């Protein structure tokens, strides 16, 4: 009779291709005999194994979350509560930051444009920069700092105080009750926050160009709006959707794998913020390349 561990593995492997792949790679690296590798190689192999295992667990959580987001029961009230927490709660921060980012963009570009006598281009440059790039990234990073960390630390404390186990003991699936509402809420709210950041950023830019470049409202807004093609708007909407998935799933992932008491909660929170921020920025590069390729104006 196979033992419990291998029986479980078979079940899981059948269900998730990702799991199988990561597991096989981890086993393969461990097949190299211990004696024939220098210490540094062992260290590297160990690190790669750990990374693969983390990636495997993360993909499993994502697959699980998607599966559970499309099947009942869906915790509607919890999702609304999270939307309020993430969306309404982040609004002041997004408004302030968006406004000043827009303003500073004009301040930085104004002198160059004045040199080339192309002041009228200000609106266009600011609009493109904000909608395509800065709006999504700034909103993404701000929400990572505020809500990615909150998600990780809240779930983390629930894990270390056995509240997550208590939930399972009471017959409720923590992925459905805790993860899905947070992912859905972020998914709905971040694109909206990004749009608000874009708008308020443009407004900040307008105020500055009104007073430093003496541009009229019609000059600025005509330029800004006409420069935006459909592709730019699509790019500006797809990015926050992807960022929302990254931020919320990474926050939940690190929160749920917390161990080691309150110190562990701190560690999880740090990991969630660092990993999510870096992932947002790296993914942004590839996403920009991809989307510019498809929607080149």
């Amino acid at each position, binding site marked *: 009779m196979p033992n*419990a561990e291998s*029986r479980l593995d078979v079940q899981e492997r059948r269900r998730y291709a990702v799991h199988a792949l990561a597991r096989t790679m981890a086993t393969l690296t461990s097949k190299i005999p211990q004696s024939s590798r220098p210490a540094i190689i062992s260290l590297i192999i160990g690190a790669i194994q750990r990374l693969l295992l983390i990636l495997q667990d993360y993909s499993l959580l994502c697959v699980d979350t998607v599966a559970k987001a499309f099947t009942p029961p869906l915790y509607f009230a919890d999702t609304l509560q999270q939307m309020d927490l993430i969306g309404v709660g982040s609004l002041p921060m997004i408004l302030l930051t968006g406004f000043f980012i827009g303003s500073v963009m004009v301040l930085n570009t104004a002198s160059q444009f004045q040199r080339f006598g192309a002041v009228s281009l200000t609106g266009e440059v600011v609009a493109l920069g904000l909608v395509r790039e800065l709006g999504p990234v700034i909103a993404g990073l701000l929400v990572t700092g505020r809500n990615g960390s909150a998600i990780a630390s809240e779930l983390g404390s629930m894990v270390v*105080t*056995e*509240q997550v*186990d208590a939930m399972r003991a*009471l*017959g409720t*699936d923590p992925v459905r009750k805790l993860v899905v509402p947070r992912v859905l809420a972020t998914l709905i709210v971040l694109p909206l926050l990004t749009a608000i950041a874009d708008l308020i950023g443009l407004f900040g830019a307008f105020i500055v160009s009104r007073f430093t470049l003496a541009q009229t409202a019609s000059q600025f807004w005509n330029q800004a709006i006409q420069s935006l093609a459909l592709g730019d708007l699509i790019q500006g909407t797809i990015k926050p959707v992807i960022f929302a998935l990254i931020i919320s799933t990474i926050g939940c992932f690190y929160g749920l794998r917390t161990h080691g008491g309150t110190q562990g909660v701190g560690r999880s929170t740090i990991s969630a913020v660092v990993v999510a921020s870096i992932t947002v920025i790296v993914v942004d590069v590839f996403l920009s390349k991809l989307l510019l390729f498809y929607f080149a104006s």
Partner: protein
Amino acid sequence: MSVTTTNKAVPGEPLIRFENVSIRFGDSEVLRNVSFQAEAGETKVILGESGSGKTVLLKLAAGLLRPNSGRVMIMGHDLVDMKEVDLLDFRRHIGFVFQEGALFDSLSVAENVSFRLREESASLQEIESRVRQSLRFVEMEQSYDKFPAELSGGMRRRVSIARALIDQPPIVYYDSPTAGLDPVTSQTIITLILRLRDLNGVTSLLATHRVQDAFGLANFVFEPKSGRVLPVWEDANGRHFALTKVLVIRNAEVYFQGETTELLKSEDPYLRQFLE
């Protein structure tokens, strides 16, 4: 999706049965070849020092952890083979009182106690009346609207017990219910557990590092008619003995299994150390 089980035990089949259960975390083996069983109506006291694996054992018994090998049979079902969805459903037969209570701190006492009922979308009146009944049982009705942060350690345990018994599960696990409490409060909690055992006939596993808990449970019964806790030998209907057994865990293995009387008589130096 639902697992069809009855609350009745299969005759001859113990309600809880561990068969050569082993579990390790990384390199450290926490339990090795643990086997024991508990009959219907029995209270099994799991005695062990801090870090001996009591919590891990209870979590295995609820399917919250999976063993590396062995079988965990609860009411004739092997939890090791069950999928998590089915386990979630199966756990309605099990009440779990966690070590520090594990109350949801974002929810009020009433919301904590009614958690399971609300998940099953019971009607509001039913929820309210059952929550009050459950809280009255643990003498915490006055805290209906409070939040866990406003409660003392002993009160939190009692609310946690109320939450575990709301659906009247036939099996209840208590994880160190008296740890960190003063003797008087500990006694209140033990009396509560006695009442639950003798009124509802629940089968339970109780993890503790205090041998007094084992004697408290073995030597006293709750008499529903008079509503009092009586020593077993004073019962009018002859010897109304409490079905309480002890299991001592040491170095990841079962070190001793038997009645409290055997434990008392034991000459073993390690067990004597527990008794002193």
